[in-house]
């Protein structure tokens, strides 16, 4: 469902993403790991068609990110880093706006909202303005807008950042429940989350993919925890 071919993106002299290639199929949950500044968010932004690549391409659900960005955005649910939203809107108003923008109207809109509000546990803050919400609730609202149209592909940038342990557990459970029917890319710094949720792991640093394997295979290969695998891979390798 996602096919990435030699994607590259620079910001001036900085090469943020350097010729990365990978595929993700339906039913897979790909964990994107890497140090800060590795290129995870840039890669996800290119897949979400928020940024255009300098070279290379990718396709999401058969739509090319360069030639058909609107079709790609229709197919994906994207949770951006820091879960931005319109602070002056209420949760209800914001989710309603996302439904309108995604052409979910009438009964379908009501059903989508009735489904997503308990799923993301935002019922208790539904009529509050977003600027009054805690970090955890803002992230849940961000997750709700990413899931509201039941997309085939999910691109989640640090979906559990700022959530308390119970909320983290709920979000991971949600991802696990959706995993078999969807293609999911999750970026995270939380290695236990990778073991909990991901069927595959890519470790990226300085814009390059260093490792593309499963969490179990990595632990077996390096004979250590995923935490130590991450340290070994990102500290010893300069490039792939």
């Amino acid at each position: 469902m996602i096919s990435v071919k030699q994607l590259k993106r620079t910001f001036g002299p900085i090469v943020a993403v350097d010729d990365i290639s990978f595929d993700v199929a339906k039913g897979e949950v790909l964990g994107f790991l890497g140090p800060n500044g590795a290129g995870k968010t840039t890669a996800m932004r290119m897949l979400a068609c928020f940024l255009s690549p300098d070279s290379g391409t990718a396709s999401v659900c058969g739509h090319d990110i360069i030639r058909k960005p609107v079709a790609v955005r229709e197919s994906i649910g994207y949770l951006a880093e820091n879960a931005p939203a319109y602070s002056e809107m209420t949760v209800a108003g914001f989710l309603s706006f996302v439904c309108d923008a995604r052409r979910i109207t009438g009964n379908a809109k009501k059903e989508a909202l009735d489904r997503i509000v308990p799923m993301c546990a935002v019922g208790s803050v539904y009529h509050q303005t977003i600027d009054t919400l805690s970090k955890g609730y803002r992230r849940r609202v961000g997750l709700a807008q990413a899931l509201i149209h039941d997309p085939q592909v999910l691109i989640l940038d640090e979906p559990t950042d700022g959530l308390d342990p119970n909320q983290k557990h709920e979000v991971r459970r949600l991802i696990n429940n959706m995993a078999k029917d969807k293609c999911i890319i999750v970026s995270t710094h939380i290695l236990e989350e990778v073991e909990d949720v991901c069927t595959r792991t890519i470790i990226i640093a300085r814009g390059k993919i260093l490792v593309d394997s499963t969490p179990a295979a990595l632990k077996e290969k390096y004979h250590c925890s995923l935490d130590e695998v991450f340290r070994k891979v990102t500290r010893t390798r300069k490039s792939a």
Partner: protein
Amino acid sequence: MNSFRAVFKRELKGYFATPIAYVFLVIFLFFAGYLTFRGGFYEIRQADMRTFFSNLPLLFVFMVPSTAMRLWAEERKSGSIEILLTLPITIPQAVIGKFIAAWCFLGIALLLTFPVPLVVCYLGDPDEGMIIAGYIGSFLLAGGFLAVGSFFSAISKNQVISFILAVVACGILVYAGMPTTLNYLSAALPPSAISAIESMSIQVHFDSLLKGVIEFKDIAYFVILIIGWIAACSIILDERKTS
């Protein structure tokens, strides 16, 4: 409802969800009225709205950029631009949706000046065509300044910088057509250049509409001005959305 209409609806509702709209409307209506009566509305002893319309360009130079400055600067600073531009919408659709919503808001501000034409019609027998042409010109003037303001809002994440740059640009568009400016420039530039500068001034085309005749060249000027600055806004937004 497509994405463009969703953006338009969200933006227009957003103005009235915060105190922004009400503060703007009160200040605009106060100064529009104050400047009209201070400019000799009764003293000219004629039932027309010349004194009302003649003050609008300078009032808009400050008021319209104050509306435009938050259009894109706030989105970029808060990060909500990443929400907007990852919805199934193109950048031009998002830019036009926000622009039209802001233009409608300014249109509402103009409509709220209805007591002035009511008073004029009650006290005398004005040329309604001139009043209608004046309002059309004012609406187009607001749209022109708003397009300029949108561009500068996309250039900077800082709303103050966007405001100042937009005020300067709108001020140049107004002052370029003023007789004092043209007289000053005529000392250094050839008549053809003076004529070109005069024809590019927003004041000249606005004054032409105030005479009550809606000419194609004046409408075309405003349309080209709006389309040009909005297109530039789209281009600059695409370049700077992540910076």
